[in-house]
Structure formats: structure tokens, C-alpha cells
């Protein structure tokens, strides 16, 4: 079994790399799209094997524990379903001339390179390697956001690039500081960057140095999470890129960046003299939540609307992990999984809607339940789910976050609940027109496949009603690791 786990890790990394190389050389978009699906599917199967395999001995570069396996499985699953969605999405883009075959070749290669970068960041036991993975994923998404080459797309990509680079620069500085803190304890060389070694020796690190390092890391990776004062790139990047990319940005890349913050939070928690990382995350999380909830009201662009909703939910997740403790961590993990599934599902629906209507303006998309019952009702279900209403999984995780906050810090629960309710109001305010208004625009049928979207919402619904005990035990264990 040990053998198979090691193989699984290698496969999760190697399949996307090979696929990226092949797709870069391959002309013909139909075959590429199918290959993209195939590669993503294989990566997902390889990651499932990790779930059941024993953990390998942590190496200098790669390792597996319960925390990252949960992230990898989620990551590759959404990567797989998004590739399915993308296959039915791009045909239309090609038909309308928004993308050319040459760009699609580039797009598919970048898609797999991005998956490789994210998987590398998740499996890395080396804080330098983790940084490289996140940087790779960032750069590939920058290129994909700008792929339409319109004014808006280029501006969005440029902004994303500049802010993302600043974030990634600050994170590298923080990484160097962590190494500096480790050197007096574990000695020079590779050991000072190995995460498992860092955690084992964190108690002896210089608290002042590790504190400052965490500030840099939180700000750096926090930019990539899209936490409030540093979120400026996020709505633009979501709105102007191809919709499959919006789905993976919201569903995956934000999670991966948050995963990096969590890894360092564990190091800090193991160092008794250091400042508690929790309150910082709680503060940033709350600011993001409340700020994004207010911003939701004035949106005019449907993808921007859901991008702000992502900021809101990432704030909520950062808040939950910042609170810490078994219940809040459990809730944070669950919420992250639920948000990924729901939000990417919503973007699948939005992608089809925007293609049919030929616009992303909320004012021009009206009465979807009448003209397109499947899409319209799916969107209704998605918004009900993301707003945190029962019977969906998001309700359960939000309920856990709120109730545990009331039990421990009632004062913090007030802005928390306020933010959630405000966001709910805003989403329903927009949904009302989108789904039930007087129908406008094209009523053309869509021949796109709705399977990925329905699959995602179905999973969220099932999770809201019945969470498999195995998953609960798993998450509970991970919540303990997170401290």
C-alpha cells in the first residue's frame, strides 16, 4: 500500500504535466478538449487512490497527510468536472469567433499546467516548492484570464498579474524569513524548508521572527485568497476570463492559497512564544465577509456578482479557521468543500446563460425559469444553496460556524450574521429578476451538457441531508491537525 500511495502522488503531478506538453503540441480542438477531460479524469482517479492508501514517509519535497489529501481530492474533482464543462463551453466560443483554434490549443495546455501547479502546491512538503506551485498556477491563470484579448480582459489580466505578483513576492519574503527562523534550530540547508521538520521544531523558533514572517505570508497568500483589502484583482479576473476559468479560480485556486496560509498557521501554533495567528485571520475574514456582502448589491455583471460572493465565502472560511478549535475547523473545511462545489456549479450555469443571452449584464438577463427551465431552476438552486439556506450543504457549514461563534465569542457573531444575511438579501434581490422577471433576450436552446452542473448541485444537496460517516471522521481528524 505504501508503494501505491507514492505512485499516487507522482501520478497526480505527472499526468497534468504530460497532458500539458501533449496538448501544447496537438492541433484540433475537439480532440484536445477530449484529452483535457481524459487527463483531468485520470488525475482525479489517481487522487482517489490517495484517499485509501497509507501515507508515505514525508520526504524533503513531497508528502501526504489527511489535510492535503482532502484538498487534492476536491481539487482534482472540480478540475475534472470543469474540464467537462469547458469541453461543451468552448465549442460555442469557437462558433461565435471569440476564440480561435490556436488560442484553444494554448488554453488547454495552460489548463493542465495550472492543475499541475495546484497539485504541486498541495503535495509539497517544502515551503519553497509550495511557493513555486502557487506561482505557476497564478501565472497560467493570468494568461487564461487575458485570452479573449478584449480591453476588459487585458485590463483584468494586467491587474491580476500585478497584484498577484506583489502577493507572491511578499509570500516569498515570508518564506525566506521562516527559513531564517529555522536555521538556528535545525541547521542550514534543505531541512530549514521542510514543513514537517519546521512543525516539529517550531517550539524553539525565535517568536519575533516567525511573527513577522507570518504577517508577510498572510498578506502575500491572502492576496491570492482574495481577502478584503487585497481583493481588487478578483472580480475583474472572474468577470473577463472564460467562464471555466472563473469556475476553477473560485472553486480551486482560492482554496490552494488558503491551504498555504493554513500550513503556516500550524507552524505558528506550534511555536508557543509567537502571536496567535487566529485573530488576524478572523479580522481579515470578517472584513472580507461584510465588505463583499455590501458590494453584492450594486453589481451589474452576473460573473462579477458571483465573484464578490466568492470573496464573501472565502472571508467566512478564513474566519472559521481563524477561530480554530475542532468545531470551527470542521465547519471551515466543510464550508470550503461546499463552496467549491456550489460556486463552480453556479459558474457552469452562468457560463451557459451568458452564452445563450450573449451578455453578462444582469439587467439584460431576465426570466430564465420561463425561457430555459433547466438553466433557470439550476441557477435558483445554486443561489439558494450558496446563500446558505437548507437543505443544502452550505447551510450546515454556515450553521456550524455561526453556532460555534455564538458559543465562544458572541460579539464576533453579530457582524458575522449581519454579513451572511446581507449577502443573502443581495443574492435574492438579483435572483428575483434573473430567474422570475419578464423574459428578455434570446430564447435559443442550448445543446450544452448540463451534467457537471447537476452533479455539483446534487452533491451539495446530498451533503446537506446526509454526510457519509467516513467523510465526517476524515474531516474531524483534519480539524484536529489544524488545531
Amino acid at each position: 500500500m505504501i508503494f501505491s500511495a507514492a505512485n499516487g502522488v507522482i501520478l497526480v503531478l505527472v499526468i497534468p504535466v504530460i497532458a500539458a506538453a501533449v496538448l501544447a503540441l496537438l492541433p484540433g480542438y475537439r480532440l484536445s478538449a477530449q484529452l483535457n477531460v481524459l487527463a483531468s479524469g485520470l488525475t482525479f482517479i489517481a487522487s482517489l487512490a490517495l484517499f485509501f492508501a497509507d501515507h508515505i514517509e514525508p520526504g524533503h519535497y513531497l508528502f501526504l497527510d489527511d489535510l492535503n489529501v482532502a484538498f487534492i481530492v476536491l481539487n482534482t474533482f472540480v478540475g475534472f468536472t470543469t474540464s467537462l464543462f469547458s469541453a461543451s463551453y468552448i465549442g460555442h466560443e469557437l462558433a461565435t469567433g471569440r476564440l480561435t483554434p490556436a488560442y484553444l490549443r494554448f488554453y488547454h495546455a495552460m489548463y493542465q499546467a495550472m492543475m499541475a501547479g495546484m497539485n504541486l502546491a498541495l503535495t509539497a512538503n517544502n515551503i519553497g516548492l509550495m511557493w513555486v506551485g502557487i506561482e505557476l498556477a497564478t501565472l497560467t491563470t493570468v494568461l487564461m484570464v487575458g485570452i479573449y484579448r478584449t480591453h476588459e480582459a487585458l485590463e483584468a489580466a494586467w491587474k491580476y498579474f500585478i497584484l498577484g505578483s506583489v502577493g507572491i513576492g511578499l509570500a516569498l519574503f515570508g518564506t525566506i524569513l521562516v527559513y531564517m527562523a529555522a536555521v538556528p534550530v535545525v541547521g542550514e540547508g534543505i531541512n530549514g524548508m521542510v514543513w514537517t521538520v519546521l512543525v516539529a521544531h517550531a517550539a524553539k523558533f525565535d517568536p519575533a521572527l516567525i511573527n513577522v514572517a507570518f504577517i508577510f505570508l498572510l498578506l502575500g497568500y491572502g492576496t491570492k485568497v482574495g481577502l478584503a483589502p487585497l481583493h481588487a484583482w478578483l472580480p475583474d479576473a472572474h468577470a473577463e476570463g472564460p467562464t471555466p476559468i472563473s469556475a476553477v479560480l473560485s472553486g480551486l485556486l482560492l482554496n490552494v492559497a488558503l491551504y498555504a496560509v493554513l500550513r503556516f498557521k500550524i507552524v505558528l501554533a506550534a511555536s508557543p512564544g509567537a502571536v496567535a495567528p487566529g485573530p488576524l485571520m478572523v479580522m481579515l475574514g470578517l472584513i472580507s465577509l461584510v465588505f463583499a456582502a455590501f458590494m453584492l448589491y450594486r453589481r451589474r455583471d452576473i460573473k462579477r456578482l458571483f465573484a464578490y460572493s466568492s470573496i464573501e465565502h472565502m472571508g467566512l472560511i478564513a474566519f472559521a479557521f481563524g477561530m480554530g478549535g475542532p468545531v470551527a475547523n470542521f465547519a471551515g473545511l466543510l464550508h470550503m468543500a461546499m463552496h467549491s462545489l456550489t460556486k463552480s456549479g453556479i459558474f457552469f450555469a452562468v457560463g451557459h446563460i451568458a452564452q445563450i443571452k450573449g451578455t453578462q449584464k444582469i439587467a439584460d438577463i431576465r426570466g430564465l425559469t420561463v425561457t430555459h427551465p433547466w438553466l433557470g431552476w439550476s441557477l435558483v438552486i445554486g443561489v439558494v444553496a450558496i446563500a446558505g439556506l437548507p437543505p443544502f450543504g452550505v447551510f450546515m457549514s454556515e450553521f456550524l460556524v455561526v453556532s460555534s461563534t455564538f458559543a465562544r465569542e458572541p460579539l464576533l457573531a453579530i457582524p458575522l450574521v449581519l454579513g451572511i444575511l446581507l449577502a443573502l438579501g443581495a443574492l435574492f434581490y438579483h435572483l428575483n429578476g434573473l430567474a422570475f422577471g419578464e423574459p428578455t433576450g434570446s430564447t435559443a436552446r442550448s445543446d450544452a451538457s448540463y451534467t457537471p452542473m447537476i452533479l455539483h448541485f446534487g452533491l451539495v444537496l446530498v451533503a446537506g441531508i446526509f454526510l457519509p460517516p467516513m467523510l465526517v471522521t476524515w474531516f474531524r481528524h483534519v480539524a484536529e491537525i489544524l488545531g
Partner: protein
Amino acid sequence: MGHGLTFDVAHLLAGGLVLVSFLMITQHRLYALLNAFALQAVLLALSVAWQANVQNAPHLYVTALIALLFKGIVVPVGLHRIIQRLGIHREIETVIGSGMTMLAGMGLVALSMTVMLKITPTADPLAREDLAFALSVVLLGLLMMVSRRNAVSQVVGFMSLENGLVLAGTGARGMPLVVEISVAFSILIAFFVIGVFLFRIRERFDTVDVRAMDRFRGERR
């Protein structure tokens, strides 16, 4: 202090980087800005080479060479050409005046000195002062990125920021090579990305002024 010359040379070079950063944030012409950047890259190469010598770490010479050839020569020459082709060798537009930029820069340097020297009392004095200088360069690069409207100078600001990161990385004794390679690599990719962007931007906007792009915001209030 038993370091003598070792210490002084490292200090001189790292301090030189910070000074050039100041030169850059107040430089209003693109060509002059590129020259200043090239100078900074050369100083960085010297500083890294000196660290390689002091720490007896030959792999750092590779980093020094990359800094010298790539950032000292290839990038400035390449950007020079781009500027020529785009015909934008006019003045740079700044958001805030040079006096204010200078003051803000001094504040940032003071901040990084206080923070870094305060939190690393136990570390090797050479490494800690290196780190303080490095943070100054990083923050000044950041200042440049936010205070400029022109896409080319934002890119230069970003690369200056990376110079600070390399300085910090090499100052940390025995830091594994993986990071240096990654930094060099990321700059390469970054330049590639930027190149693509600049050409596209030129194609579409006939300007590399970021403010011109702001007009095309998806959402206006």
C-alpha cells in the same frame, strides 16, 4: 566585530542597492529608469557573488551570473527596444510627486530597518543587515509599482522588488538552491508574460498607460 572587510563590503553593496532604488523611484524618464535598473542588477550580482565568497557557497555564483546577464543586460536591452518600438520614451506620469515619493521611500526604509533589526537580534549580523536592506528594496519596488501609471515602469518596479527578494534569499545562509532557481525562473516567465502583454496592449490601446486601460473598466459607476 570580527568581520572587518567582509562585513563592510557586504554592507556597501546592499546599501548601494537601496540607494539605486531611491534613484529609480524618483527617475522620471524611461531610459534613465532602465539604466538605473541595470545598475541595480549589476550591484545585486556583485552582492550575491560576495555572499558566495563569504559563505563559501559556489552555487550562489550561478545566481550572481543570472542576475548579471539576465537582469543586468538582457532585460534592460529588451525593454529599451520595446520602448523604442512603442515610441513612448517621453516622461513618466507619476501619481504622486517626487518629493512625496522620496519621503514615502524614506519612511519605508526606516520601517524596514526598525522591524528587521528588532526581530533578529540573535541572527548572524551580516544576514540580519542584509535582510533589512532587502526588505527596503522590496518595499521601494512596491512603492514604485503603486506610484506609477506606466506599464513599463510598473514592470521595472516589479523586477526591482524581485531584486530585493534575491538579496534576501542569498543573505539567508545555506538557503537551498531550489528557491534561487525558482526566483530566476519566475523572472523569466514574468518577462515572457510581460512581453506578451506589452505587445497586446500596444496592439489594442496604442498606449501602455495603465490609466488608458482603466477607462475600459467593465463596470463604471
